[in-house]
């Protein structure tokens, strides 16, 4: 049988419908400044940030098997890089976002060299320690307010856009764009040869290695990509907040615990998981907002319940039951009708 006798098909009827729904949704969301108020835009931008963070953590832990509890390191590095680049290098805040990502990627390479000496549980704990080291180092930067942090100078905020309205629209669109770029990049990655390697590593690392997958290299690439993306999201989050401090920028609860809850509730190791999980997270938050810290307590309980009862998450339940996929990621071998059966 010749190589051209079969082809790989990705799309299924459900993925065609899913993709169409997503495109319609993106168009509606892109027009949000027309139909939404200021609070809606802020909330949506926050949702996009969490979808992006959860998608990146999902790529790292769900696919590459690198269970990190220290991704707050890169949120913080991105945020601090943005403040430093705009305040001391005079960069435009929007230009500083990709550079903050590059800074984090550069820092992540030597960090990975250290962390990758450790496996499993030790790796997880060490990622947290590394994040603490960066938090304590940030607290030593006196020009950025040391332990108590600092605000972005008004001049920089005004230079970004003349009016408050345009500034808010800009940040909103950038948040939407960044989320789409990150999901798009992950989608392209998963459809590529790397994606096949990653899926193989996710399912069985030893089998992947024996089939010629360079596991160490693949993991390093994913770690650096994730650091870069996480830092860009971090930079944007704190550009919206306009105020930074080591404790908020390197918060383990905000940028790792909740992100893990979101991913697990939605479904680990599936690109749809973080989308579903974030929607659930924010519905809960809006519903229980009046009860103060009680909602965090509920969130922890729900994450535990989902982990115990539906370890593949909500989307895992749906996908197993109906075989749906939102984005065309499956690989199925299709043989043309005319081809004679294999001998």
């Amino acid at each position, binding site marked *: 049988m010749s190589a051209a006798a079969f082809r790989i098909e990705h799309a299924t009827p459900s993925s065609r419908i899913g993709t169409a729904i997503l495109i319609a949704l993106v168009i509606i969301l892109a027009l949000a400044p027309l139909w939404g108020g200021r609070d809606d835009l802020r909330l949506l931008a926050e949702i996009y940030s969490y979808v992006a963070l959860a998608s990146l953590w999902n790529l790292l832990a769900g696919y590459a098997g690198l269970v990190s509890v220290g991704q707050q390191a890169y949120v913080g590095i991105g945020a601090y890089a943005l403040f430093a680049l705009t305040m001391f290098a005079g960069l435009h805040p929007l230009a500083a976002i990709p550079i903050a990502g590059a800074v984090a990627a550069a820092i992540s390479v030597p960090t990975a060299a*250290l962390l990758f000496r450790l496996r499993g*549980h*030790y790796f*997880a704990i060490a990622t947290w320690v590394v994040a603490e080291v960066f938090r304590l180092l940030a607290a030593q930067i006196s020009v950025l307010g040391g332990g108590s942090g600092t605000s972005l100078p008004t001049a920089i905020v005004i230079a970004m856009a003349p009016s408050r309205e345009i500034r808010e629209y800009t940040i909103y669109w950038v948040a939407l764009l960044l989320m789409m770029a990150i999901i798009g990049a992950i989608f392209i990655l998963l459809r590529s040869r790397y994606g096949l390697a990653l899926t193989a590593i996710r399912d069985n690392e030893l089998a992947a290695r024996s089939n010629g997958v360079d596991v160490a290299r693949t993991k390093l690439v994913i770690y650096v990509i994730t650091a870069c993306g996480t830092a860009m999201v971090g930079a944007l989050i704190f550009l919206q907040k306009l105020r930074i401090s080591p404790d908020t920028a390197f918060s383990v609860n905000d940028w790792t615990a909740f992100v893990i809850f979101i991913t697990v509730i939605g479904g680990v190791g599936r690109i749809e998981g973080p989308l579903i999980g974030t929607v659930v997270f924010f519905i809960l938050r809006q519903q229980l907002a009046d009860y103060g*810290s009680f909602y*965090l307590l509920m969130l922890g309980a729900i994450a535990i319940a989902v*982990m115990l009862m539906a370890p593949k998450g909500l989307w895992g339940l749906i996908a197993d039951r109906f075989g749906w996929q939102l984005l065309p990621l499956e690989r199925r071998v299709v043989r043309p009708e005319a081809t004679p059966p294999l001998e």
Partner: protein
Amino acid sequence: MNWVNIILQGVLTGGLYAMFAAGLSLIFGVMRLVNIAHGDLIVLAAYLALVVTTTLGINPLLSIVIVAPLMAAIGYGLQRLLLNRTLGEDLLPPLLVTFGLSVIIQNGLLEVFTADSRKLQAGPIEVDSIQIGGGLAIGTLPLIQFLTAVAVIAALQATFYRTAIGRAFRATSDDRAVAQLMGLDNRHVYALAMALSMAIVGIAGVLLAVRANFDPSIGPARLIFGFEAVIIGGLGSMWGTLAGGIILGVAQAVGAQINPGWQLLAGHIAFLVIVALRPEGLFPKVQG
């Protein structure tokens, strides 16, 4: 002489860190469970000590008699009802569930006790000290705490290597399937290990409450100190855990002397340097 004093204080603090670590070391060794909520459980024990002390009007150090068994019971229940269901090849389920517990405990304590900083008063013993010559003095309370830590670790080591239940712990640690074939009920063995771990958490919580200010948010930092001590010491060796705690305490004391902002940083960097050079820790007995 100043440096001798600094290192001495570091060693004493290290004893407290070893107390944070001993319970972690036990359950991580027996069932490879990373308990992210460990630090928050220490803080929970500190608040239990607060409640017991204020209700009964006794010395906080005496509250150990009530807090430690109470924590052990909580630990047994937690393991039987929740944590046993998460154990397996995948490290994500136990990690996520204990992360969830951590958030639940932190916010539960916040709801009940507010974010105010608390401390228990142990009376005149807090300011007593013992002269040991050369102008050096050791606080009585830190010394009691250090000796308690050594005693707890010695007891744990003896339990682990000399008793029937210790043999069960080691057997399940080595191979849970074979241990089960030999007639051990793993769920019960794990729950006993967690109960013992939480009894130590109870003692550590009371010592913490007497020694320093505490509030609902300080758990994760105690968890990190504990884990660093476990990993530095190497898995399966309780004396290694004590050594790990002391190394951490001394590194922090020396760092603080150089620059007050470097106290925690010096501890973390000492940890990272050691794992970079010896990923399996200094005195490993069991494979991670």
